[in-house]
């Protein structure tokens, strides 16, 4: 396979919690610029897989290669700086901060002001702050949250909080964006808006890895899909191929009697 075209590859990645094999030898590769869906029944190991990619967990075995660089052993903040950003399944915003400040935090790696810069309020710090705020406003407009920038994050509606999480992740300027069930709890209208937003993010040049239970969304939007069940990858391919796969049907619906 062409290495230049590949942004992320996992090689026999496993994660054990004691005797439980949460993930078992998962091989996966994701191409630059594609929308990749990761599905599977509850407890299949999808979020664990995300946590391995972002460094929140360390793999028990295997390798994770991002942009031709082994990222196993790196801390989450280092991985974010390299260009992987995520949203969380159970929304994890900085609730007491304003919407704009939440996105500003996402800009952390893109900005440099340190302790002395902020105490002395150096010209560099001031102009950087201004630049960052402008950028954040653009991002908020991009996800459709302009006009809400001074509200506290906790006061946003559910769907807005999901979009704020995406804006915050985008602020880190990721090349690979991991979305963990972004449509959970959304109504059909919100889900449609989300689909549109995901397309627009992809068109900006980002690669998207998506965990989702909403089959209409994930099958409609993904170019390729992988299916996890009990920590193992049981199928991979285009949405059409995966939907026909016997093992997938079995995992979701059980065996015929």
């Amino acid at each position, binding site marked *: 396979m062409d290495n230049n075209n590949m942004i992320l590859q996992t090689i026999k990645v496993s994660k054990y919690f004691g005797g439980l094999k949460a993930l078992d030898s998962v091989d996966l590769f994701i191409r630059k610029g594609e929308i990749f869906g990761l599905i599977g029944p509850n407890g299949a190991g999808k979020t664990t897989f995300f946590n391995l990619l*972002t460094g*929140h967990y360390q793999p028990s075995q295997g390798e994770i290669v991002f942009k031709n660089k082994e990222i196993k052993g790196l*801390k*989450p*903040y280092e991985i*974010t*700086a390299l260009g992987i*950003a*995520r949203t*969380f399944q159970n929304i*994890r*915003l*900085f*609730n*007491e*901060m304003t919407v704009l*400040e939440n996105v*500003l*935090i*996402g800009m*952390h*790696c893109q*900005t440099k*002001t*340190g*302790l002395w*810069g*902020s*105490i002395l*309020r150096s010209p560099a*710090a001031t102009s*950087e*702050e201004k630049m*960052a705020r402008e950028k954040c406003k653009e991002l908020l407009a991009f996800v459709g949250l302009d006009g809400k920038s001074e509200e506290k994050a906790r006061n946003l509606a559910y769907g807005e909080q999901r979009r704020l999480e995406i804006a*915050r*992740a985008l*602020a*880190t300027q990721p090349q690979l964006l991991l979305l963990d069930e972004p449509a959970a709890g959304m109504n059909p209208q919100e889900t449609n808006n989300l689909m549109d937003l995901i397309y627009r993010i992809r068109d900006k040049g980002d690669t998207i890895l998506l965990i989702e239970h909403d089959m209409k969304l994930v099958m409609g939007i993904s170019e390729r899909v992988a299916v996890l069940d009990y920590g193992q990858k049981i199928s991979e391919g285009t949405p059409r191929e995966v939907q026909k796969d016997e093992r997938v049907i079995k995992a979701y619906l059980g065996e015929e009697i």
Partner: protein
Amino acid sequence: MLSSYHVQIIILSGINVIMAASLNLITGYTGQLSIGHAAFMSIGAYASGLATLLLGFPFYLSLFIGALVASAFGVLLGLPTLKLKGDYLAIVTLGFCEIVRIVILNMDITGGAVGLRGLPKETDLLTVVVCVIITLLVLTRILHSRVGHALIAIREDETAAEGMGINTTYYKVIAFGVGAFFAGLGGGLFSHFFRYIHPNSFDFMRSIEQLCMVVLGGLGNLWGSVVGAVALTAIPELLRASADYRQLFYGALLIIMMRVRPEGLLGTRSEGFGIKSKFFRYSGWKKKGEA
């Protein structure tokens, strides 16, 4: 004009404002529960006192040295312990406070149990006011910057903060380093005001007193710390007759504040940033509708 008694109360209030504001940076803004803040005050008081007495440094240089030494200990304490969270960190800070007290109590250079005596009286009203202004100005600037946002993000959600590219350990060490610096400054002002310091002046109860000021004013509210520190310095003076009950008063105040107004007098957040649950694991206090 102000009588010397009033000046003394104002100076003490000022020192306590510095202590409360610096503790607020660590506990209120960064969310790291510290119940050993007096240790940094103690280190600053002794370091600056010794710089004046033994090395003959001028007052302002001594003050700065005291703050710097305290800051170094803040970083030193920070590095190995900041992987700890909540209760565990609180216990370590408590232990640190006791260790500092006992070490100073048993050292010759510090005067041991006799205390450190014969310091010149250098701390005056103007110095304290200037120090308070510098403290508040520096803390405000930090808090409104990229660094401050990172600190607050750690308090709000450490996992998410890390996921956004924040090196949480580094920023927690910064919080402790800066907090300890100003606590050391407060200690230096303290020692050069009373001219005599004893290890027991900086015991666990002083740490709790400082925490009370922060909680009363509002966790995560700098002006709250000013109000809390001034109130808790002035009120006991008004109630001199019942001074024996002061510590009882602090305990009761903490409990009442947590129960009635966990966000503090000037705070805005209803849950007091979860500090309430860090202190009291009593489910009966959870709000209605909470799981």
